């Protein structure tokens, strides 16, 4: 009897599908990126003048896969499209960003139609798996040095792998539409 049933159990066991990975949710993934981006101002200077940014930078960089790309607009140090690659590159960007800004308040924009406000997360599934998502946002921040506060509209395009890690993010900031906020 056992010789008859055992192969059947083995067959059924092999046919059991592996537990499915939870579906990637663009809202949660993108939201987490904004939370950790805004936390890049949550660090202190030691009494000896050391800027302790490592903890917040590491937490931000944890969202990225090992071969991720982080792509931003030109800045005073470089002309053209600036690409940061891999953990070290992304930590470099995050450290510079953390040391340059305070009172970060980047937020995903709301759109209202028929008196119904919502934040729109545009998402699609790439053919290689994972998830792609995009949002419009408002970058609100204060320059650490001159303490001037600005609001700049922007957009961010994310590609996540199957585990939800960022493979690529491209950030566009409309600097021509920057507005200084009176304090």
């Amino acid at each position, binding site marked *: 009897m056992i010789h008859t049933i055992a192969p059947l159990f083995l067959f059924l066991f092999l046919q059991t599908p592996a537990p499915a990975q939870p579906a990637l949710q663009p809202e949660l993934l993108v939201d987490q990126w904004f939370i950790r981006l805004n936390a890049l*101002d949550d*660090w*202190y*200077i*030691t*009494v*000896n*003048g050391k*800027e302790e940014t490592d903890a917040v930078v590491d937490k931000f960089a944890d969202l990225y896969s090992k071969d991720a790309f982080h792509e931003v607009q030109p800045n005073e140090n470089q002309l053209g499209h600036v690409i940061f690659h891999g953990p070290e590159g992304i930590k470099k960007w995050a450290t510079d960003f953390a*040391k340059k800004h*305070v009172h970060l308040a980047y937020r995903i924009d709301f759109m209202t139609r028929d008196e119904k406000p919502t934040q729109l997360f545009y998402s699609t599934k790439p053919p290689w798996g994972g998830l792609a998502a995009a949002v419009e946002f408002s970058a609100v921040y204060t320059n*650490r*040095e*001159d*303490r001037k506060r600005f609001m700049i509209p922007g957009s961010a395009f994310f590609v996540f792998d199957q585990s939800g890690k960022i493979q690529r993010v491209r950030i566009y900031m409309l600097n021509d539409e920057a507005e200084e906020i009176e304090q």
Partner: protein
Amino acid sequence: MNSNRALAMIAISAVAAVALSALGQNRPYDQVMKEVGPTYANLKKNLDASAFPAAAQDAAKLESLFKETENFWTPFKTKDALDFAKNAQALAQTASAAARDNNAQKAQGAYNALGKACKGCHDSHREAMPDKSFKIKP
């Protein structure tokens, strides 16, 4: 005698501040801040008691402490902190000069303004921790 001693202390404070600046060596910031509080309280006490030489000495010490404060913030180029520190030095200098001139009203005015400069910088750059210690915000 008291005047001479006050002048000597002012000179020593000034030399110490210049020496620290020249050497580029800053004391730990908490040491500086922990000296500001008692010195500021002494200044008030001496002004109230019309002990002007001692008040001038306190104000001169505050000036050198705020120079150290400025030195701490200089590498970070943090405008508001630097402005607060420079303003505090100027006010301490005013208080010191007014005390040397026995001008209680002017010294008291500078003392009050100094308190506002302290508060402004603390509001922007000091954060209280649950254990009642403080951390320095960028």
